[in-house]
Structures are given as structure tokens and as C-alpha cells.
């Protein structure tokens, strides 16, 4: 990937512009400056230009204002992470300049708003500085009333010029963004864009041009992980949901509230987290798998009802958009520290399913899988996503919607007789009859949280509790058998196997590619199905000297993160170790490699 700054290729046919394969642009300002909008435009432009794109953003957890960044990595080849270091930094304020020049590559370009930023003379030799009066030029372009609102669009124009981006496509994107608003707003935005684009750069400044992206057969769509998950649920046939606002889950509930009525469905905002899961379970019972979701603290509140769904064997999808820390923690940062609560949260033996999407595209398909596992095994399924994947934008091949969209309308065909908790059912899988279904025998089922007999009536029989406990567990063992064994990324034998789950797939793969380029025998394995695990992982592990589980959570009391702990418990294999971090930020490729190699070195010396 981009080891040298904007590694230029032989310029051909375009004298002024150097050809580049990819670029990482970091925009730093305050949260109300609309810097996410610039990132969004660039990401969508990349999608429309058949380039790969991945973004990364931070937002402050304050209500208004506060420093915020948006990083976008655009490439003509495969883009796996949002980039360790930036090629270009756009700094709106002094604090943006001071805090983010460190994230720039040596020799990188810093473009700063000379109306607000006093550059540091000590940094002048390390980075190429370009001061532009962004605020005053924006005011000039828009004229009077707007203050410096619109400077994000001015900057977009600058970037378009610098990277020789497709102007008509960007103009179209800008216009689309302001559709439905006053025509003067669109005009102002376009004026700001053109002012930025036509700003006279010193002739010493080179411009760049991306190498053509590989032609793809299908069209690309551009969205963030929360959007992909929301639309995935709709494609899966979910038509009812209930939730309570919490960052970063709220986007999904807002999307479903807006979209579900188009399909005859509804999303209900409830008074609290407990009501949300209860209402969703009620709707699932009524015949069609429903969804609820939250982030950390809300998931804690939902666990009693989740236990009921396990006991009553009710299908349900629960989205957990993980954020940092216990309690209120770091609401706008990322962490993978809800794995334990997702797998084990609650009282009693309560087996449920946990799946974790690996990227934005996978959010869409994981939602469909989650719905189908819930239906097939009559069990609650937790989808563990996180703040990073929720907010990052990626372009991916548009799904064949006609093919993937499914109808899961309930079946009310009358039946002769029915036992919801039939102990003889294949693999112990319960199939519920929705209320409204006529049962000719006149014996109707009750779904319940009490230990029950096959008809759902309470029992205190020790034997029945043993049989029913086994039944609820056995069906997940059956699911294990059905799960595909994930493929190793890289050779299936070597020194180190990096095991990851969830949103870290991209940076881990990029780490493997880098390591392989340095002739290090490192491969990776990505787990999407966390609970139950697919069978046969031990065989995969046997090809490697070390198995390092890379997670964004704490190394724990005994030196292993949350997934590492499960893998250790499952395989009792002492070569499993944790590579962890808790800074609330996504993995940098370099961090993964440095920590893994340091750990391997420690182990070689007999340490742990």
C-alpha cells in the first residue's frame, strides 16, 4: 500500500498531474463544520468512479462543537483500512493543525486555513505547507450572510483541483445533497465549490491523478455500516422493530423508522431499552422476526428479556453497536468489549447466537443471515457491530436485491395438533405457531419463561429441566455443524495466525499483506460466527506456531482478550494469546504488526 508519499507512477499523457494509485486525506476541524459531508462526497465520488474507498471518522460526544476528523482513503486497488498515516491533512483550526500533523506522513502535504492557523516553523521542513485563506475566500464566494458556512465545500473544490477529480460528478453530488432546499443554497454551495476549485495554486504545486480503477461488472453503492445493516434487515423481511435512542445505534433506528412504513412495517420508539426488546419479542411471537438494538449500556438493560427469548425459544435479532468502555464509557469511540455480554450476558444457562460483520458490505449480508438463523433455530441472534464500522463509509457491489430480498410473512395454515417445545423435534429446534393459527385439537400453546413441558406449561420436573436445557443447547450445536469453516487469508501454515472478528478484518488483512511482503510467515483468520463457533478451528490453528487473537478490548486479568478467552476455553491450546488495545480507535496496520512481533519475540524468550 502507500508506503511512499503519493507514490507517483510514470506520468503519461497528462503532463502536470502525477499518477497515483491511492491517497489518504484527513480533514480536521470542528464537528459543525460539515467535514463529514466532504468525506461523504469523496466517498461517493469514489464509488461512482469504480474506486475503492474507506473512511474513518471521530465525532466528539459533546452536543455541539468539539474537534472532529474525517479520514478518507481512496484507491484504485483494494482498500482494506482507512490508512495508518495521511498523505494530505486539511486543517481548519490551530488545534486541528497542532493535533493532526503527527498523523501525516513525512513529506506529506498540510493545507491549512491561513485565517485561523499559525504554522509551526519547526514543522516546515517535515511537511509541505500550503496556507490558503479558506474562511475569507468562502465568505467572498458566497457573499455576506453565510459567514464561513460552506468552507467545507470550498475545501472540496480545492481537493478536486489537487487530485484532478471529476468535476461534473462532484457538482451533481453537491446538487443532490441539497435537493429539496432553497435553490439559492445549492447555488451558494456550487459557488463555494468553484471558488475552491479555481483558487490559483502556486505553479510549484503539483496535482495528482488517480490511476483508473478496475472496471467492475456491477454498479457500486456507497453507504456506512449502520445503513447497510438497516437495509439488510429490510431485505431479510424484517417489518417490525423497537428501540430507544443511544449512540451509535440511533442511526439504525432512525433509518428503520423512516424506511419500514414503505414496506408496510413499523419501528416504534419506546420509553426505555427494556420496553424495546419486550415489544420486539412480542412482535416476533406474533409471527415475524423483529429487531431491537442498542449499544453497551442498553444491551445490559435488555439481558433479562433476552434470557426470556432463549427460554421461550423465540426468534429475535438484537443489534449491538459496540462503543468504548463499561457504563457510559466512550460513547463515540470504538471497542470490541461487548463480546462477553453478547455470548453470555444474563442469568442461567442461556445459549444464544452471536455473529459479527467484517465490513460495511458484510453488514448487509450479516443482517440477512442473522434473521435466517433466528428463524431456523428459533433463537435470539445478537449482531455485534461497532462504532467504527457503523460510521465508516465504503463502496461495494450493489446486491442483487431481487434475489436476496425475502418474504418471511407468517404462515397461519391450520394444524391438527401442536407442541411448541417438542422434545422429539429434529436437533431440538422449536417452531412456533403464530397466534391466530387454528389448532384442531383445541390444545393451544403458551410461550413462557418458566421451565415448561412440551406444550409450554410450567413444570418443576428435574428431568424436564435437564431435557429442555439440553434441547436449547443442542440446536446451537446443530448450527455449529452447519457453519462454514472460514478460509485462512494467506498460506495455511506459518509462524503466526492472526485471528480477528468484526470490523478489524481490513486492517488485519493489510497487516498480513505487509508482513508477507517482508517475508514474514503471518496469515489471518476472520471469525464471523462467534457463538457458536464453527467446527474445525483447531485444525486451522495446528498449521501455525502462534495463534494471536487481535481485538480492540482489554487483555484481561489472565492476559487474554474476550475472544481469546473463549478460544482458550474451547481448545485448551496454550499457543493462543491476545493482541489487544483500548485506545478507542481502530487498529493501525503498524500497531498490529509491531504488537504481534513483540509478542512472538517475548514468547520465544519464554515469556508470555
Amino acid at each position: 500500500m502507500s508506503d511512499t508519499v503519493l507514490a507517483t507512477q510514470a506520468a503519461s499523457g497528462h503532463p502536470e498531474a502525477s499518477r497515483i494509485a491511492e491517497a489518504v486525506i484527513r480533514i480536521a476541524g470542528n464537528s459543525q463544520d460539515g467535514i463529514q459531508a466532504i468525506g461523504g462526497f469523496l466517498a461517493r465520488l469514489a464509488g461512482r468512479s469504480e474506486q475503492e474507498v474507506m473512511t474513518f471518522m471521530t465525532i466528539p460526544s459533546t452536543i455541539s462543537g468539539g474537534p472532529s476528523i474525517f479520514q478518507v482513503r481512496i484507491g484504485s486497488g483494494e482498500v482494506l483500512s482507512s490508512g495508518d498515516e495521511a498523505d494530505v491533512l486539511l486543517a481548519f483550526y490551530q488545534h486541528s493543525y497542532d493535533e493532526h500533523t503527527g498523523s501525516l506522513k513525512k513529506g506529506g502535504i498540510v493545507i491549512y486555513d491561513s485565517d485561523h492557523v499559525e504554522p509551526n516553523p519547526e514543522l516546515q521542513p517535515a511537511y509541505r505547507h500550503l496556507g490558503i485563506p479558506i474562511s475569507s475566500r468562502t465568505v467572498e464566494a458566497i457573499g455576506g450572510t453565510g459567514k464561513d458556512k460552506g468552507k467545507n465545500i470550498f475545501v472540496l473544490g480545492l481537493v478536486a483541483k489537487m487530485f484532478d477529480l471529476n468535476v461534473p460528478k462532484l457538482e451533481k453530488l453537491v446538487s443532490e445533497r441539497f435537493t429539496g432546499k432553497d435553490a439559492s443554497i445549492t447555488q451558494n454551495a456550487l459557488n463555494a465549490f468553484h471558488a475552491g476549485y479555481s483558487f490559483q495554486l502556486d505553479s510549484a504545486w503539483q496535482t495528482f491523478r488517480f490511476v483508473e480503477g478496475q472496471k467492475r461488472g456491477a454498479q457500486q453503492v456507497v453507504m456506512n455500516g449502520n445503513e447497510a445493516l438497516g437495509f439488510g434487515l429490510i431485505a431479510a423481511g424484517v417489518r417490525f422493530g423497537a428501540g430507544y435512542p443511544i449512540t451509535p445505534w440511533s442511526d439504525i433506528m432512525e433509518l428503520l423508522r423512516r424506511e419500514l412504513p414503505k414496506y408496510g412495517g413499523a419501528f416504534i420508539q419506546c420509553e426505555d431499552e427494556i420496553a424495546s426488546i419486550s415489544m420486539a419479542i412480542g412482535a416476533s411471537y406474533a409471527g415475524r422476526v423483529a429487531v431491537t438494538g442498542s449499544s453497551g449500556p442498553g444491551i445490559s438493560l435488555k439481558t433479562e428479556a433476552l434470557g426470556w427469548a432463549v427460554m421461550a425459544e423465540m426468534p429475535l435479532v438484537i443489534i449491538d453497536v459496540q462503543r468504548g468502555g463499561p457504563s457510559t464509557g466512550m460513547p463515540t469511540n470504538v471497542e470490541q468489549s461487548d463480546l462477553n455480554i453478547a455470548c453470555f450476558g444474563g442469568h442461567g444457562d442461556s445459549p444464544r447466537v452471536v455473529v459479527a460483520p467484517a465490513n460495511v458490505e458484510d453488514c448487509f449480508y450479516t443482517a440477512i443471515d442473522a434473521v435466517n438463523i433466528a428463524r431456523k433455530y428459533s433463537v435470539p441472534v445478537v449482531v455485534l457491530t461497532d462504532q467504527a464500522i457503523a460510521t465508516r463509509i465504503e463502496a461495494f457491489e450493489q446486491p442483487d436485491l431481487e434475489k436476496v430480498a425475502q418474504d418471511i410473512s407468517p404462515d397461519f395454515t391450520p394444524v391438527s395438533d401442536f407442541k411448541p417445545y417438542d422434545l422429539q423435534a429434529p436437533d431440538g429446534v422449536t417452531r412456533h405457531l403464530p397466534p391466530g393459527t387454528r389448532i384442531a385439537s383445541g390444545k393451544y400453546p403458551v410461550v413462557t419463561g418458566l421451565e415448561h413441558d412440551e406444550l409450554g406449561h410450567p413444570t418443576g420436573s428435574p428431568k424436564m429441566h435437564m431435557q429442555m436445557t439440553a434441547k436449547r443447547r443442542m440446536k446451537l450445536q446443530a448450527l455449529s455443524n452447519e457453519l462454514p469453516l472460514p478460509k485462512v487469508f494467506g498460506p495455511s501454515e506459518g509462524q503466526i495466525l492472526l485471528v480477528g472478528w468484526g470490523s478489524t478484518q481490513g486492517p488485519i488483512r493489510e497487516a498480513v499483506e505487509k508482513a508477507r511482503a517482508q517475508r514474514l510467515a503471518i496469515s489471518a483468520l476472520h471469525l464471523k460466527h462467534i457463538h457458536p463457533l464453527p467446527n474445525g478451528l483447531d485444525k486451522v490453528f495446528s498449521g501455525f506456531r502462534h495463534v494471536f487473537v487481535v481485538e480492540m478490548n482489554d487483555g484481561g486479568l489472565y492476559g487474554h482478550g474476550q475472544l481469546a478467552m473463549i478460544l482458550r476455553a474451547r481448545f485448551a491450546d496454550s499457543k493462543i494469546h491476545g493482541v489487544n488495545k483500548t485506545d478507542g480507535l481502530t487498529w493501525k496496520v503498524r500497531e498490529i504488526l509491531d504488537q504481534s512481533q513483540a509478542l512472538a519475540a517475548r514468547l520465544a524468550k519464554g515469556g508470555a
Partner: protein
Amino acid sequence: MSTTLFQIPPRQNTIAITPSIPEAERKGLTKKEIAADHPTWCPGCGDFSVLALYFKLIEKRKILHEKITTIAGIGCSSRFPYFVQAHGAHFIHGRALSFASGVSLSRPDLHVFAFSGDGDAFSIGGNHFNHTARKNVKMTLVVMDNWVYGLTKKQTSPTSPQGFKSKTDQWGAKDRPINPMKQAISAGATFVARTTHTNPNHVLQMMEAAMDHDGFSFIECLSECVEFYEGSFDASNPRKGGKFELVPEAHDVSNELAAYALAGEDFPGKFGIFYKSNRPTKNAQEAEIINDIRSKNQGLKDWQILQKSFDRMK
């Protein structure tokens, strides 16, 4: 991507049939057909009477097994669904109304009944009571109020009167009790009625009126706990020397303040419908949103509507 991974097999544990009696010729149910498990309540419990009258309601109104859904949380009262031969759910403590809302909002074809006790509805489930009333979700809630926690054997409940000696208030309850009628009226319930288990005809009348109400209908039914609070409601029972007085005919059920005043009367107070209004239900409002939005996408299949959204994300 793995979209074909999890194929759902057809129903395995049922045999689909064409019922021998055609839909149109089905008659109402007998009490024997509606009764399921024998109730686990103590002999003399007021809840027996509520159950008997629920059966009577189903019998009288010729409701078929599959058209009703009986939902409860936790408590003595909340064992209810096991005793009714119909689809039912026994949910967790305090959350029956949220569960019932999920059923009601997604299934307009069902009569949704929730049964609850004073602890379930006003203590652990107090928040859900207020919000289900406010949202006006179509269903009937009967709270069998016995002024005590019975299932856990005599602790103070949110409706226990001050001075009631329980295992958690050995010297007599100190906290001001909740007034269920005031609570319901101020929360925005659109049907608020009060009855007592010792007057079966009145219980049935209230249940019928509640079922016919289009909205969240709430009945407080005094239901004596003979084990832990014997004699609690004697003052409302003429056979025990008390008074059973109906809501005066002149009372205007649409007058919220008058209803509130009625609810403030000292025990035994009045019995009947205190308040009734015709605010649109949550069910109707959601249906309206759906109809409005769907009129713009007429003739499109679901995947085509989804395609339109995806086209905007290119």
C-alpha cells in the same frame, strides 16, 4: 456472500390440515373448551372470579380460540395465560404491556388481553403502564389489584394502604400508595374503569365495554388476597357489610377532571367507567403513516422499493 446458507425447512412438528368444521359454521366455545390448566391460586382468591368472567366474555361474545391472545408478566395474577385455552404468553416481570404492544401493533386481527397485578403494573412495570396508556395501543389490561405481593408472600405493594403491616413494613406501610385510576387518567389511558371481583356481573360488563373500546382500555379489578390481606375489600362488599356504589349516571365519562375527582374518593369509592375518550390509537396512527407512504410506491414489489433507496446511494 452467504445468503443461501440458512435455508428454513418447512414446519416439522405440525401437520397442516383442512379443519373438519368450515370457518363459517364454527360456533362459540364452551367454558370447558376455553379452560386449560387448573389454576394454581389459593382457595378463595379473587382471581378465580376474574378468570371465570374472562371465560364468560369469550363464551358470550363467541370469540374463537385463535382470535384471542392472553399475555401476562409475573405475579399471582399473571399465571392467567396457563389457565386459558388460547394462544398466550407468560412474559417477564413488569413488561407484559410492552410485549402485548408488539403483538397488538403487528396483528390488528387479534384481541389482545393483558392481565397483571398491582406490583407488576404499577411498580416494576410502572413506566410501561404510563407509556402504553399515552401511546394508546389497542388492547385491554385488567389489573387484579390485591394491595399486596402475594406470590412472594406478603411484602408491601405500591397500592398497599399506609399502615398495612407486611413482611417488609412490620410496623405498617409508610409510602403513599399509588391510586391506579388517577395514574391511568393522567397517563392518558382512553378507557379507565374500576370493578371488584365480588360483583361478577359488573366485572363482565366492564370487560365487554373495555374489549369494545378502540384503544388502551384499563380495568382495575379489586381482587382479594385471602392468604395475605384478608378482608382488604370488605368495605366494598355488601355481603360483608360494605357498600358497592356505581359511578353516578350523571357522571360525564369524557370529563377528565370529573374522572380524576371520582378517583380521589375515599375507599370504597365508586365502580364503573370513570373515563373514556376516542383519541386515535397508536395502531391507527401507524397504519396512517404506512398508507400515506405506500401510496407513493404503489405497484412496486418490496425489492423494487429497496432498489430505489439503493439507487440514491450510488
